[in-house]
């Protein structure tokens, strides 16, 4: 973006206001950190950590279309809070950011990718729940989001999920938030392929609201604060995001949990947040209590 700025300066001055908005939005999720890589960490032989560490590379699954958490940038690499968490863990294994292979995982294939060993870990706005726990293990949670509603700026009639009963609400086909808003609150689902595809119908007032995790919606509000707002700061579900890994790898799981707590203590958790989602969501999160099951 910066090179572009100098090259096309005259053009940009004319449109500076609009571009400043888009730049701040890009900037919000595109800055990255380079955590210091641990030198020759030692692990118990046969542990997953030892294997990954000696291989010198790791494959991490993340989302490529989730603003602030995991979103593919113009250079083709994902950026966001999930990505930073992934980098921090890799660094503790002695693996630099350049040795991480990022694989796009979508909601539908996350469990399968872990089971088949296509990825070593998944950091992908991955809500911990009991059903998923029967198939994979979760370290964390490292963040707690919650389902929320986004409406047009001038809409004051919707403040809580009960208000959308019988109304059109857009969400991603086959996602958990979509199921919740329909089954618990009686909304009429308008399905889309991605959350960003919901923006146009909302703008055109063909749907009353968009629903998904509050952090994703916050990203949209940030890009267009004059058009959209969150219906309320309250969330109506709890979505603890965990790090997915192979089932029954208890050693690896508790090691990641230890690292998460260490990141919290040494401030790298906060730093990762501020470099990414923190640019938009001002209230810094506290690391949720780790669930060591």
């Amino acid at each position, binding site marked *: 973006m910066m090179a572009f700025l100098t090259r096309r300066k005259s053009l940009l001055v004319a449109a500076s206001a609009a571009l400043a908005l888009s730049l701040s939005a890009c900037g919000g999720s595109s800055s990255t950190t380079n955590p210091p890589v641990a030198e020759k960490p030692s692990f118990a032989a046969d542990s997953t950590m030892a294997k990954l560490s000696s291989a010198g590379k790791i494959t991490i699954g993340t989302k490529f279309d989730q603003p602030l958490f995991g979103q593919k940038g113009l250079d083709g690499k994902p950026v966001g809070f999930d990505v930073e968490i992934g980098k921090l863990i890799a660094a503790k294994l002695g693996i630099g950011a350049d040795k991480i292979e990022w694989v796009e995982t979508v909601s539908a294939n996350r469990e399968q990718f872990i089971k088949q060993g296509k990825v070593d870990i998944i950091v992908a706005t991955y809500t911990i729940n009991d059903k998923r726990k029967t*198939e994979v293990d979760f370290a964390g949670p490292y963040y707690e989001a919650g389902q929320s509603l986004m409406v047009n700026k001038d809409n004051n009639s919707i403040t809580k999920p009960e208000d959308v009963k019988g109304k059109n609400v857009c969400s991603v086909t086959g996602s958990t938030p979509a199921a919740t808003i329909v089954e618990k609150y009686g909304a009429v689902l308008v399905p889309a392929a991605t959350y960003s595809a919901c923006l*146009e119908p909302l703008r055109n007032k*063909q749907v009353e609201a968009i629903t998904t995790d509050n952090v994703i919606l916050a990203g949209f509000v940030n890009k267009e604060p004059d058009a959209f707002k969150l219906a309320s700061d309250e969330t109506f579900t709890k979505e603890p995001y965990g790090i997915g890994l192979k089932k029954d790898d208890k050693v690896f799981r508790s090691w990641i949990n230890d690292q998460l707590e260490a990141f919290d203590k040494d401030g790298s958790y906060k730093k990762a947040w501020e470099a990414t989602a923190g640019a938009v969501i001002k209230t810094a999160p506290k690391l949720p209590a780790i669930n060591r099951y």
Partner: protein
Amino acid sequence: MDVIIESLPQYWDGFLRTLFLAVVSGIIALIFGTLLAAARVSPIAALRGFSMAYVEIVRNTPLTIAFFFAAVVLPRLGVTFQQFEVAAIIALSAYTSAFIAEAVRSGVNSVPIGQAEAARSIGMKFSQVLSLIILPQALRTVIPPLINILIALVKNSSVAGAFYVLELFGYGKQLANEHGDAVMSVLIGVAFFYLLITVPLGYLATVVERKVAIAR
């Protein structure tokens, strides 16, 4: 298999919406496609040009882009609708009619020249030659390919699931998410309901094909 039985209401709802999209779009596309084919062989240059350009562009555009235009660009142009089925029907019928026009045109070309010559020699106008002599014969030979286009239409309606209409495939994705342990059964259930429409249509095509072959 329990999943399929348990979710029958959702499947049925989705099935009906898919059927609705296919039937309404199919009827519109048949009418519009035939008009396009007629325009393609008409004496008026502008009509020929329009028909040709339309068919060429639409046939070379992915359906997802057609859906994008109908569901996202049209509302920006002031054509808004509260029912997203309208956008899906516009996209599906606009897309399908280009293929129908091509099929009907090749059917028109398959009618022996003598038919048109005979019709004209007894004093018929272009509109009469086309509507009374050529199209009735052409339509008979194009029925099998037309049915195949309609089969494709039924399947194409599954793209509507990504463009704001909850139809059979959309329900399938939803059920697959809810029943992560029984994904295979869920999707086989979806396939079954599609085949419920497409296999009989395919069979019809085969039968008609045989009938037409005998007639010629």
